């Protein structure tokens, strides 16, 4: 029946009523309220940050600074960790007598897991930057500014905060959608949340970026985040138009802007620490597990792989699996190693890195560090590397996120949809990157 009424009266009768009420308030206000509120410094700052035209460009610029910081300033710290761990790897290889155990410790633990831990600094730096942005009160402004556009594009304004949280990890991001009242808005936000590049994908970007993008590494990583946001918005628009369940405008929302505050050193560091520690815990458990699996599959059948003095990766179970799925990925320019890394990334995105680290560690006899090894191996060109990054961004959320999506939507239908559309979109986008880049003459 509401459709009929809207049809008769025109879409926005509700808005007309609200406007009239506000107009009445404006009439009443001068008669009951005297005195003017002086501008505070907070108001001044808001003038620029919330400005119709400058608000979003400033947001994008700050985001860029965040990434330069995350990537370029953390780089030597990552080097430090990797140097240290590879030394340990060498020592253990030499000192453990049992060959299989030696390989496990040197290549699996120090090579694979160590490879992942080498990406700890960017994660900490990212969280540090985010904590500063959040504690200063800026993020609420960013949410407000982005909301204006989001509302026009069909996403509920309250979506931005869960999406921002999704940048840390998609799981709390999905759970944060509980603040959205309308179920349709909520599910839509949940569906696009995984497109927010979570911190687990960062190691993959850093790996590929450092290996093949050279000086453009930070730019490549930044564009992944921007790509995620753009795709999220596009998908939301698309779903709203195409899927009947989502039809209709989202309800507007009111956001209270907190006062600006100078972020304290202690507060910021403790935020950063909290989130960084989560990564460490994850590393110690799921990622470690995944790496063990990868190590195992790439080292066995033992005799076939360790033939004499050579390490014949091609004979391993992993290679069999990889070669099997490789054809799907060939148009995108990924070889079987990339394919298999993506396959295991289903468990946790960091395992994509762990897989490469283990593989190269094994192949190079444990002395190779993963970034130069990847660069030298020539598996990725800058273009296909970028496509790979995009694929990692989009394809499917990690298994833990899928579980949370299922819990929050209480529906297998939506969960499966989330997985499937992710796969399709990832393939399409990666293909597009390779295709368009090819047109410009990139390889």
């Amino acid at each position: 029946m509401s459709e009929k009424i809207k049809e008769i009266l025109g879409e926005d009768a509700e808005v007309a009523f609200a406007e009239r009420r506000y107009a009445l308030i404006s009439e009443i206000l001068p008669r009951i309220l005297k005195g003017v509120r002086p501008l505070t410094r907070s108001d001044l700052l808001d003038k620029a940050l919330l400005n119709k035209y400058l608000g979003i460009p400033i947001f994008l610029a700050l985001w860029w600074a965040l990434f330069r910081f995350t990537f370029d300033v953390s780089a030597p710290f990552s080097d430090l960790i990797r140097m240290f761990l590879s030394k340990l790897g060498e020592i253990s290889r030499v000192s453990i007598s049992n060959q299989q155990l030696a390989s496990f410790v040197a290549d699996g633990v120090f090579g694979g897991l160590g490879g992942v831990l080498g990406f700890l600094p960017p994660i900490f730096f990212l969280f540090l930057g985010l904590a500063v942005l959040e504690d200063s009160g800026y993020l609420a402004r960013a949410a407000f500014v982005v909301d204006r556009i989001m509302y026009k594009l069909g996403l509920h304004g309250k979506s931005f905060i869960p999406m921002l949280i999704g940048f840390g990890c998609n799981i709390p991001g999905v759970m944060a959608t509980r603040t959205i009242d309308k179920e349709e808005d909520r599910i839509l936000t949940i569906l696009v949340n995984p497109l927010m590049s979570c911190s687990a994908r960062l190691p993959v970007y850093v790996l590929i970026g450092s290996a093949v993008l050279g000086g453009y590494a930070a730019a490549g990583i930044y564009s992944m985040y921007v790509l995620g946001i753009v795709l999220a918005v596009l998908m939301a628009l698309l779903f709203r138009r195409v899927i009947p369940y989502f039809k209709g405008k989202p309800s507007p929302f009111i956001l209270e802007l907190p006062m600006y505050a100078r972020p304290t050193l202690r507060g910021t560091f403790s935020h950063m620490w909290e989130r960084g520690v989560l990564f460490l815990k994850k590393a110690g458990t799921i990622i470690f597990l995944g790496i063990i699996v990868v190590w195992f599959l790439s080292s066995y059948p033992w005799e076939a792989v360790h033939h004499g003095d050579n390490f014949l990766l091609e004979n391993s179970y992993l290679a069999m699996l990889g070669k099997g799925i490789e054809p799907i990925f060939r148009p995108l320019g990924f070889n079987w190693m990339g394919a298999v890394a993506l396959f295991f990334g289903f468990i946790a995105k960091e395992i994509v890195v762990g897989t490469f680290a283990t593989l190269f560690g094994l192949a190079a006899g444990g002395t190779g560090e993963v970034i130069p090894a990847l660069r030298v191996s020539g598996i990725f060109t800058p273009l296909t590397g970028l496509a790979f990054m995009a694929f990692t961004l989009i394809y499917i959320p990690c298994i833990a996120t899928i579980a949370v999506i299922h819990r929050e939507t209480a529906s297998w239908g939506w969960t499966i949809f989330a997985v499937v559309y992710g796969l399709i979109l990832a393939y399409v986008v990666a293909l597009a990157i390779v295709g368009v880049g090819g047109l410009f003459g990139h390889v």
Partner: protein
Amino acid sequence: MRLNRRNRQIAIYAITLGVVYVIVGAVEFTSGLWNLVSPGITVSFLGVPIDLFGGFAMLVMGATYFGAVPILKGKHGSLGFVLIGTLLSAIFGVLYLLIVGADGFGTLLASWEGEEWTWEWLTSGSAGPGLLRPEIWLFFASLPLAYFALRTTKKERIQ
């Protein structure tokens, strides 16, 4: 009013900075764009770094400084643009300084691994021309502006 005169000076200072940011930013941005579209050709004007997003950021900062124009007409509320502009200048200035530092640290680590120590990182590295990077100098140039703008907006509750 004395307050008014100081604000005018602030506005002019800000707008001048804005012009410089926009010019340098435009160069960084377009050379970055050119580089992206026709790979292999690296065009660099007068040592200005080629940086697509960095150039974009500079353009944004320039535009923010231009937001100070209404101050000349007496709209003191626009001082907010000056505050944000200097804040952004500081953020990027410090950022590039940190990157140069990180490059130095990286060179140190490499020297532990056996590579030769050089001072190259001071003028060439992840931040383009290192310490010669325009954003760093513009940051220093913006410091006095920041000082004055903060002083003006401190005690006075501006109308």
